[in-house]
């Protein structure tokens, strides 16, 4: 199930199977759409939306389909209405480039504003979008502390320093092979001490959790990948994953 088909076939809320986990003793819910929900503070976290990615590429001469923003926002709308959070944190790279927010089509801008009204909204600065998104409300910060957790875009490099960190940036994906057939999905990656979120945007790719970029970030013994399925989360221990 990839992101674009997820947007096509949204599953009714009552059919969803989430994974209930803890990050540094804070309860959290991994949703199959790729969002993280903290029930204690009714906070919803989405990471790496990469809105206006198509337009960003078009500006550089690659005419990708101009439909990605609408699709991603459709998924954001779905999770927001599913959890009705008081607070939403966009964990960085919300726009694919600096020009994205300013060039956002009016319809998407309206849709976003509708989602934001009545709740706290944080834009964590990412490497793609270090500035406050032009023309949009919400607070733009580089880090945010909440519920005993720390939210930032890029994970810190060592496992020790990062207890309680929730980050994005790396787009983790995991691969499982059974009977010669491989399945690869975006995933939440957590060892109970920190969490790296899957990318939420519909045209974002994934990076295998076994890639060197993840080395040293987790305790491999405790690391679990929560893979995004069509209507449920599949939790698989790191050692059972294929590189």
């Amino acid at each position, binding site marked *: 199930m*990839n*992101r*674009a*088909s997820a*947007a*096509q076939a949204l599953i009714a809320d009552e059919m969803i199977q989430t994974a209930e986990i803890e990050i540094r003793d804070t309860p959290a819910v991994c949703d199959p759409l790729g969002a993280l929900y903290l029930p204690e503070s009714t906070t919803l976290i989405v990471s790496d939306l990469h809105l206006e*990615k198509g*337009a960003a*590429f*078009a*500006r550089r*001469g*690659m*005419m*990708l*389909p*101009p*439909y*990605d923003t609408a*699709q991603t926002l459709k998924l954001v709308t779905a999770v927001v209405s599913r959890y009705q959070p008081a607070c939403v944190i966009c964990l960085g790279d919300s726009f694919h480039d600096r020009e994205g927010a300013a060039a956002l*089509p009016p319809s998407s801008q309206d849709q976003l504003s509708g989602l934001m009204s009545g709740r706290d909204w944080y834009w964590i600065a990412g*490497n793609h979008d270090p500035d406050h998104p032009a023309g949009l409300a919400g607070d733009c910060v580089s880090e945010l502390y909440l519920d005993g957790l720390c939210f930032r875009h890029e994970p810190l490099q060592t496992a020790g320093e990062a207890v309680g960190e929730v980050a994005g*940036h*790396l*787009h983790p994906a995991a*691969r499982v092979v059974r*009977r*010669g057939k491989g399945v690869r999905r975006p995933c939440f990656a957590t060892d109970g001490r920190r969490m790296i979120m899957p*990318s939420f945007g*519909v*045209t*974002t*790719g*994934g*990076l*295998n959790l*076994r*890639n*060197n*970029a993840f080395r040293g970030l987790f305790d491999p013994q405790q690391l679990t990948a929560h893979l995004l399925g069509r209507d449920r989360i599949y939790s698989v221990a790191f050692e059972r994953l*294929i*590189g």
Partner: protein
Amino acid sequence: MNIDSGIKPAATDPKLPEPFFGWFGKRGWQPRPHQLALLDRAEAGGSSLLIAPTGAGKTLAGFLPSLIDIALKEQRRKPGAALSSARRGIHTLYVSPLKALAIDIERNLATPVAEMDLPVRIETRTGDTPQSKRQRQKLNPPDILLTTPEQIALLIASREADTLFDGLKYVIFDELHSLITSKRGHLLSLGLARLRKHCPDLQTIGLSATVAEPEELQAWLMPQRAGDGPVLSERIVVKGGAKPHISILETEEHVPWSGHSARYAMADVYQAIREHRTALLFVNTRSQAELLFRELWRINEDDLPIALHHGSLDASQRRKVEAAMADNRLRAVVATSTLDLGIDWGDVDLVVHVGAPKGASRLAQRIGRSNHRMDEPSRAILVPANRFEVMECQAALDANYLGAQDTPPMGIGTYDVLAQHVLGMACAAAFRADDLYAEVTSAAPYADLEREQFDRVIDFVATGGYALKTYDRYARIRLTKDGTWRVSNPRIAQQYRLNIGTIIEAPELKIRLTRHTGRGTNVRGGPVLGKVEESFVEMLSPGDTFLFAGKVLRFEGIRENECIVSKGGAGSPRIPAYAGGKFPLSTYLADQVRTMLGDPDTWRALPAQVREWLEIQRQKSVLPSRGELLIETFPQGDRSYMVMYPFEGRLAHQTLGMLLTRRLERSRARPLGFVATDYAMAVWGLRDMGLMFERGELSLAQLFDEDMLGDDLEAWLAESWMLKRTFRNCALISGLIERRHPGKEKTGRQVTVSADLVYDVLRSHEPDHILLQATRHDAASGLLDIRRLGDMLSRIKGRIILNRLNRISPLAVPVMLEIGKEPVSGEAQDDILAEAADEIIAEAMGGTR
């Protein structure tokens, strides 16, 4: 015209001027009739297709008109008159599908040019040519430029195209039969149309092996006119020389039921190498090449110089092997299709083909590599890897004697290639859509292109061709006030150059050898051995071993875009698999194998163990006749199996498998899976399908009805990974997505675009998009072989034989052994597999084995 190579030409021929006449004489040669015929046509201003077997002096024939023309022009030049500093442009372009071939031709032409002291400068230009030399070639072009289709595309899109090609007289296409069947050929045909615009009088010379439809090639060489019938070039055909001696390996060993390794035959193959001067060993895939090479060295007691040559090896490594071969320093080379085409190895006296050739024409081409002189017979040994391959080899052998040809057709020009070309033409100069349309439709593959589709392609190039017009301000090409289309930004031309060509390789990593074992990737690098597909490397953990370039390598890790390895390591090595290396069984050979199966009289030519196998099949089940489709059902373990034998190739069978399981699901037969080989397809499920047929719960006619290719196909295609892969190729060729460039990739941050995701977005929003049209078109003939499946379904209508058995039949064994085969397996798994395999065989043969 047809020319029999046996006829001696006239002793003197006024056509051949000095110093050429004298040079032929000094060598004791006489110009061959086809060489003179081609020269004659060329001097009369015509274009020609020369069809000749290898060793007929095809190359010299192709170049004679150019060499003579350049030499005579030089003679006529007033003595003392210096060449103008602007210099003439390129006189002759030679286009070859392989870099190695261009380099080989340069070597071969050097001798006559030097001996006759001709005032001709000949140079090569390929992807490997240094930038400085390429730049110089643009400013000071050689008389004859030997190059590849991709370089043609680059040159015609450059600003210097005018001066380069203004004096162009000849374009020679070598191995034309292999060029025109692919998208590469489509792009080249558009390039030729553009060259003609620079130089309306240019003449073409096509050199080709024997093909099924020569008129397609003749049309390809000529500018086509809308509304008229095809315009054809002249055709000169040289009748074949001595018949090759081909045999199927005779062995005392047990020929395996399935698999592709041919390990059983190693001792016999080695013996054959020993008995010959130089042997070329052909295999179908790079992994087979690695395996064969390793197995041969395992038993290479005499330390014979045996080398390896395949497309993933580093270029310098390949050049070394080619040079050693040319110097006769090798006794054998294990090679894949990278050596298929006309590279001239003088002293090869044996070709060994390991695995079935999959097509009669391919076999002829490969056998042509031995004894590269037309009048001496080639010698070849076919080594089938399993029992069906024995029959396939026999069929190919018969076909070779009969001269049957199963070359694929030219195909209709695709939109993705056209999109690439349109952008290139905008990079070269501003164009009017009307002019470019006329130019494009003069190329044979695009002769029937509708104007509406052409305009859609232009729209696609400009802004992506979407219904939602949000990208106008970012357009790559723009219609300006004077009615011409222009590139909107110089950066676009730069991007274009980096994304040129139609050869799409799976993402690959360089393999770099380090001397440090166990130190991970944080080490100083050594030499690059070649490339391996990323998907294979992703399956490795540090410490794993694999076979590459004939060496066992230990995987250390990935650094940037390199796969770091060290030598050695323990355990049984894995073998990298490469996508797209497998050829499907040709329709022609498939038909021959079916015929053989149904006609026991033809079995005499087969080895005893294969005859026995067919004989037992006849006793225990049935053998279908040529036009029939045999379907067998039987239980095995707690499953029910249905095995069919369409012989339509793995791709068509896979598509059939997908569609049949959908239908079986609807009929509540509860299918669980299927497996396909080149010859057969097996479906298994929980309910007894034989019984269901008997009770009328399943209907054969309905199950195999042609309407399978309607809705079921559409529904399946939507999800098919094969269609996604096809789309990826189209997206890359058309320039929708940029290629990844070595050195410019960043790991750790996935900012590149996934073609799969773009595909899904496009499918749900614009199912009619021009690129999806291109994808479906490709799928129909390419990866999914839908056309072939359709032909099969209509052929077998009312001619299906259903045989309900109590147990597995001998014919079913090979496909049954494929079930559950892991792509990579350690030794322990091999043992389990072998055990399971033995059980199945014993049951099928009723203990007679």
